[in-house]
């Protein structure tokens, strides 16, 4: 177990609660220092980035994790809630249990990165900056917490924590229909949370830690089949209940992904959310759904993952194709990107449904890549929207000559998004499809899904054509090219996209050991 501490506090705790510290600092800032608020917020997120870099330097990619406690790194385990409860087998014990393995580590990096980028992109927020950044940092805490929590209860707490600031960020700083979008987002996610909560409680009551004999929320213990007595709710004898639990969890997480038919909150939320929040939403929040599936559904109910392989693959295929078709019909740039996110998250689902090592590697890699690429795309939408105050695709044309640097940035992002080789998403999509083909049960579905590659290219190219090609309408002569701040927020991401496209091993090495372990675990090979 790698220990890495700062002032006696583990590095993961620092990463989770640093934004909270930032919140406090922001709240304590006097009115006279209001113009420095954004810099302080950026400062804190950049600290987060530094910590992530430190983590990256120390991280040992040869440790597997997943269902072995010893394979987790930077583990912090403290008793959080410990109360005697005579009705519930003696005591309720909930742990403050953090750690990372190859599945969560890319997500932690992504969160740190996107949070930083989002903070820079938030400079265009003019209304009540203090409140905005306080909520923003709170959101970062929630996201980071989800990715490092290893106790289901703690996970759920962070999962729900994240909702609140998101609600306000969309509902206060959003576009015209912000209240609708915010409420839709909130209720929809809460609806999903209810399922997760149910399963969580069910798991708790069917568990019995083989070592302590207590009921537990510890995910790693829950992955151990010995934890469940055969006749408990989710014990081996109750196959039906296990499958139902898997399905319920899947619905809960699918809403976040979002998987068809639970995706409709996404376009609304994206369209209404301010740019930086769209970036966070697409860059990190969606991954929480798929991450949750891998970490919880796939690991705790591997039988469910095997059983539901085909339905999940079908949903994934629908996501891919249907999302792309819907994207093609959009006239709002941001909505188009939102639908493309749905399509791309379909790839992630497909990779996970394959339950093969290559597919899940691809899925996690795609999660990371989609985070970076879509972040750039949403930032680009923000660039044009800040200048023109419209996002209608048909309102533009010929921007390529007017804004050449912007054109270059968005071209890289767009081609990355359609999986052009040399850019990171190509590798992940390739892996996902290879995984899909490898699994004979979902092979046909995966083959059908490749239609998505074509459709994807079609709407992206059409978008490029409508926005950038042709002649510039008179009224857009006022537009200026992308400025330095926007370049700072986009170019590093693009550099990462290109770098990972050429040297994917950099990221794959981080996760492949864990993914191997996970796949072996799913198929019961150990």
């Amino acid at each position, binding site marked *: 177990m790698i220990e890495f501490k700062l002032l006696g506090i583990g590095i993961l705790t620092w990463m989770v609660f640093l934004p909270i510290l930032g919140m406090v600092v922001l709240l304590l800032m006097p009115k006279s220092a209001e113009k420095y608020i954004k810099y302080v917020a950026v400062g804190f997120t950049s600290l987060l980035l530094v910590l992530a870099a430190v983590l990256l330097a120390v991280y040992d990619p040869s440790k597997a994790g997943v269902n072995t406690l010893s394979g987790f790194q930077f583990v912090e385990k403290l008793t959080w809630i410990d109360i005697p409860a005579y009705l519930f087998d003696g005591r309720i014990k909930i742990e403050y249990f953090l750690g990372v393995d190859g599945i969560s580590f890319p997500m932690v990096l992504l969160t740190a990165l996107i949070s930083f980028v989002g903070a820079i992109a938030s400079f265009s927020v003019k209304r009540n900056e203090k409140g905005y950044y306080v909520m923003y940092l709170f959101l970062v805490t929630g996201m980071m917490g989800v990715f490092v929590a290893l106790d289901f209860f703690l996970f759920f707490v962070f999962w729900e924590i994240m909702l609140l600031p998101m609600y306000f960020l969309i509902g206060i700083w959003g576009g015209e229909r912000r209240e609708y979008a915010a409420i839709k987002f909130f209720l929809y996610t809460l609806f999903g949370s209810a399922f997760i909560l149910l399963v969580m409680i069910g798991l708790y009551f069917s568990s019995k830690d083989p070592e302590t004999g207590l009921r537990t929320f510890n995910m790693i213990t829950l992955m151990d089949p010995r934890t469940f007595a055969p006749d408990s709710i989710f014990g081996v004898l109750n196959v039906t209940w296990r499958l139902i639990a898997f399905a319920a969890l899947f619905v809960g997480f699918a809403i976040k992904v979002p998987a068809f038919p639970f995706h409709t909150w996404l376009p609304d939320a994206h369209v209404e959310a301010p740019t930086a929040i769209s970036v966070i939403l697409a860059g990190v929040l969606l991954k929480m759904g798929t991450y949750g599936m891998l970490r919880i559904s796939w690991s705790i109910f591997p039988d469910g993952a095997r059983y539901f392989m085909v339905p999940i693959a079908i949903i994934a295929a629908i996501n891919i194709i249907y999302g792309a078709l819907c994207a093609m019909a959009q006239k709002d740039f941001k909505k188009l990107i939102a639908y493309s996110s749905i399509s791309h998250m379909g790839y992630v689902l497909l990779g996970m449904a394959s339950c093969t090592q290559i597919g899940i590697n691809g899925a996690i890699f795609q999660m990371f890549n989609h985070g970076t690429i879509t972040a750039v795309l949403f930032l680009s939408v923000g660039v044009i929207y800040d200048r023109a105050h419209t996002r209608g695709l048909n309102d533009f044309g010929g921007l390529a000559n007017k804004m050449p640097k912007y054109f270059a940035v968005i071209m890289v992002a767009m*081609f990355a998004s359609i999986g052009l080789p040399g850019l990171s998403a190509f590798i992940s999509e390739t892996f996902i499809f290879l995984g899909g083909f490898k699994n004979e049960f979902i092979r046909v579905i995966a083959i059908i899904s490749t239609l998505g590659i074509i459709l994807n290219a079609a709407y992206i190219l059409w978008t490029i054509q409508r926005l950038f090609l042709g*002649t510039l309408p008179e009224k857009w002569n006022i537009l200026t090219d992308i400025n330095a701040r926007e370049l700072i927020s986009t170019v590093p991401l693009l550099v990462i996209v290109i770098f990972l496209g050429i040297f994917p091993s950099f990221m794959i090495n981080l996760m492949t050991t864990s993914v191997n372990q996970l796949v072996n675990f799913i198929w019961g090979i150990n």
Partner: protein
Amino acid sequence: MEFALQKLPVLVLLIPMLSFLVLAFFGKRLPRGGDWFGTSLLFINLAISGFILIAFGVAGRYELNLEWFNLGNNNVLGLTKFFAGFQIDELTAIMLVVVNAISAFVHLFSIKYMEGDTKYTRYYAFLGLFTFSMLGLVLTNNILLMYVFWELVGLSSYLLIGFWYEKKAPQEAAKKAFLVNRIGDVGFFLGISVLFLTIGSLTFTDIFAGVAAGKLAGGTLTAAGLLLFCGAVGKSAQFPLHVWLPDAMEGPTPVSALIHAATMVAAGVYLVARIFVILSADALTVVTFIGIITAFISATIALTQNDIKKVLAYSTISQLGYMIMAIGVGAYSFGFFHLVTHAFFKACLFLTAGSVIYGMHHIQDIREMGGLRKKMPITFYTFLMATLAISGVPLTSGFLSKDAILSATLAFAGVNGGVTYIVPILAFGVAGLTAFYMFRLLIITFLGEPKNQEKYDHCHESPWQMTIPLISLAVLSFFGFFSLNPLSADHGWFLSMVKMPESILAGTKGAFYHILPLEEFTEHLHHAHTTAMILSLLISGIGILTAFVFYYWKKVNVDKLTDSIKPLYNFSLNKWYFDELYDKTAVAFTMSLSRLSSWFDAKVVDGVVNGSASFTRVFSKYTGLFDNIFVDGLVNLMGGLVGAFGLLFRKFQTGKIQTYIAFLVFGIIILYFVFRAM
């Protein structure tokens, strides 16, 4: 020599990349937009690749594999590793020279052609990017990496077709090119997946070894081969995905010469050549027929086109079909030979077309040209040389390669018999058609009387930057560069270097096809050679003669003739209505499906969500009412009851102890009676 094969290929690959990066980021600051930088780099590159070719001739094959990334050891897939590497073999060495030569000439040509364009620097940067990707494509020893560069050439093709994106047509053409290619690429990708999942490695050597070891056989092998071939169909504009190439002529003409005539479109042929040894008999049948059908369809379309570039585009498609067919019938080296000769003479044709367009101030319609021979003699003679080559007139490189292919088709039909005779028949027919439409183009453009006097008067010969590439390419269309024997290239250096490989599946039989062992096939080729040569000479002669009869001597009234076969003429003029067909079916279907799903999403899926929300709201209104009236009513009733009792009992709660005492006593009395009763 070792050094030349180990390190220089990397250099060759990186030099155009350097050109791209420098021009993309600093090009605007360089004098003259940096055109000299890119051009000189490319000529250096050409020199290096020439050196590599010689080095290869001496030292032979070289292959280098580096681990790209690996997924560790896994019980399901085994040790999963992906490699990156390059190889130098005869195909690569020759392709390097071809690509670099044409690219260098196009760079030079473009200096004048693109002069004054607002995006001049960007143009050169894109040329660099394309050259990089194309060289990567030919250098790699790995089919996945090949796919990578395959897509990158697609990207640069997209960027260059849509170079004049202010206009509508280039935008559409670029998009179409990319998407149509993408369709083929999906097939290609699926093919790669099959190979990877069955063989577990993607380097060509491993794949061939795997197939030889029988890891991949039967229907799966055929499927894999056909899927890979899909990529070639897309990139080499084969039927039914050929529709993008004529549209791609919207790009600058030098780009058409480089990408859409000589190199990128040949990548498909190159791919088929690379995987030739693992194509099963059935797959080869499909390859052959796709090739010949493409060749035939596009040749018929080329007959009636009036845009100089469109004619050339269809002729390109037709010739690509030839190459594909050649590989299909088993004449691997002839197909590749034709690829190389075609690259030079077609590049020459396109560049002369560019020169004409430049001279005519961007007129492309041949009906407005005529008599240009006097105004642009160099252009005319180079064009003539290339036309002779493509028509298969002896003493040209085209004659050598084409004749070889035709003999191969004959040999093929001779072996397999039956329906396969369609292949040589169509092949010879196409050869005649080619000669006819190429000379039609030549005659209308350069001979006869000028039709647009004004344009004609302003017309002039192109400057040296343009003519030097033309002359060089025209010279390269001469037989002597490939073989000293003007009638057969069999003993020339080219075919000595590019030996026919024996198919791994030699001896297997498909439905229409019998893959012969190499020796037997060579024997058949020998027998067919003389017949094929005589036939092809005859047929191209007829084609040329007819063209002269129709358009030069005007012995036949062409208008009348076309009127008499109007439907056929229109069919050809409208390109067999492929575009319309695709627009009406696939495109329209996708678009309406897209609109439908968007509608479905907004109305149905989201409708369900919103509906459930409003249902909940309405429901909550009623539950609210229910709550207010019934539930709360009950509560209120209880409350009211209690209140009423309270009011009643309040009377007793006087706050006076005496009253309480009175009740106490009363209670005692009651209790007494109660206990008495018990």
